[in-house]
């Protein structure tokens, strides 16, 4: 366990930024957003960033290849990216948990090389949540905000920031910046952890349980008539999908630049009407079907294929951002039959 005084935190940032890029949450007029650190940049005190940290590994758009067309010939030029090491500071436990979920998709065979490279080059420093918000329900998914994970975990206690490496990568990083840190005892942060757990108990969603969902069969949930009322006022926008740390559906598209064809991939949303539209029809024609797909995927299909792990980490972004305030918590409660609790 190492520590640094909060008023000297810039020394730590400086030491990290000396060798690689450092990103941390910064207050902007669009809430907290990850920005590159440079002298004078101060870290946001917000609980979480507006957009999730998935952008670091899975950017909203990225080029895959370029095609040069000449007569009947096609030349394929795969996109070659130069990847640099970087550090992300201040990732919360929920977002850190989301990386494991994204890994299951992108790092399973066949490996998505773009994602894999970005993942390898990034070192994640997490930060425990001293002041959780009412929208938090990460504990429902087994995330412990007092033990935030990542390559290095950090805790703030009064005017001190405590850091502890969790992985080899984290160990290496802390060794490299050892000059900015001093030794500390693991017991020092126990009160912080205890305090966080007390706060988590007090949250309005602390008792949210998935039992009601787990007890039902996939097909019963799928054919439930409750979906109609839940999805009734859904706008069919992609807000929930795009702010979600675990949503990873993408589209592959071509753009004619005039000098060739650029093939890129971009985030897509199952809430969009053209998500499954084919030349001869669409299998999910109504917003209800699309809405159902999103939540069935997170709460049923994904766990079915991944040893019971849900594709939600309880970060609460969709609760805060949905234009009509329909969200996964309401779905869990309604589908699980606990809407009045």
């Amino acid at each position, binding site marked *: 366990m190492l520590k640094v005084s909060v008023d000297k935190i810039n020394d730590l940032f400086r030491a990290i930024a000396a060798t690689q890029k450092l990103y941390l949450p910064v207050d902007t007029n669009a809430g907290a957003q990850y920005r590159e650190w440079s002298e004078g940049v101060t870290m946001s005190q917000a609980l979480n960033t507006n957009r999730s940290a998935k952008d670091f590994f899975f950017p909203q758009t990225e080029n895959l290849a370029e095609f040069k067309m000449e007569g009947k010939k096609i030349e394929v030029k795969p996109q070659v990216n130069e990847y640099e090491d970087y550090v992300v500071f201040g990732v919360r436990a929920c977002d850190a948990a989301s990386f494991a979920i994204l890994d299951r998709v992108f790092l399973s065979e066949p490996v998505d090389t773009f994602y894999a490279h970005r993942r390898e080059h990034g070192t994640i420093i997490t930060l425990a949540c001293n002041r959780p918000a009412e929208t938090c329900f990460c504990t429902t998914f087994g995330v412990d905000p007092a033990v935030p994970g990542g390559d290095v975990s950090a805790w703030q206690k009064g005017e001190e920031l405590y850091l502890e490496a969790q992985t080899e990568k984290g160990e290496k990083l802390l060794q490299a910046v050892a000059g900015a840190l001093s030794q500390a005892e693991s017991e020092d942060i126990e009160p912080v952890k205890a305090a966080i757990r007390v706060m988590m108990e007090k949250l309005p969603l602390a008792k949210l349980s998935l039992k009601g969902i787990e007890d039902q069969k996939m097909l019963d949930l799928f054919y439930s008539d409750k979906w109609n009322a839940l999805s009734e006022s859904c706008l069919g926008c992609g807000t929930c999908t795009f702010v979600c740390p675990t949503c990873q559906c993408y589209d592959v598209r071509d*753009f004619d*630049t*005039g*000098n060739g064809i*650029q093939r890129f991939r971009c985030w897509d949303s199952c809430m969009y009407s053209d998500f499954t539209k084919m030349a001869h029809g669409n299998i999910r024609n109504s917003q209800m079907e699309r809405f159902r797909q999103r939540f069935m995927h997170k709460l049923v299909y994904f766990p079915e294929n991944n040893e019971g792990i849900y594709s939600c980490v309880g970060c609460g972004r969709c609760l805060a951002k949905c234009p009509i305030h329909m969200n996964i918590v309401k779905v869990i409660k309604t589908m699980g039959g606990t809407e009045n609790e």
Partner: protein
Amino acid sequence: MQVEETKEFKPTIVAFCCNWCSYAGADLSGTNRLNYPANVKIIRVPCSCRVNPMFILRAFQRGADGVILCGCHPGDCHYTTGNYYARRRMTLLFSMLDFLGIEKERTRVEWVSAAEGAKFAATMNDFVATITKLGENRRLEDIRCKKQ
């Protein structure tokens, strides 16, 4: 040794011309052997009001440095009132582009009749000169469409 770039900037101009007046005007300027720069690309449209704001933006995306819309003089529209609507639309669009900080000189509307070959050539020469002075379109370009 470094060779100094002396390449002169030649803007790409897209001119949307209505079929009944301005396109004929362009034709006339040609038959009268009046010169206007070759970098003006004319796109013939049935009426000036056929031009959707999207056309203007797409022209910029695809490399235009200036876009000009030419139609019949107000009151002379082949379809009676088309250019009156175009006039309102373009006014509002140009104002919006200006609001977004895009140089307002890059867009223009001119009324050119079939008999005004000279006006067509003069307008184009003037517009090309303005854009040449203004330089390359940077604020409304699509970086992907730039030639490497």
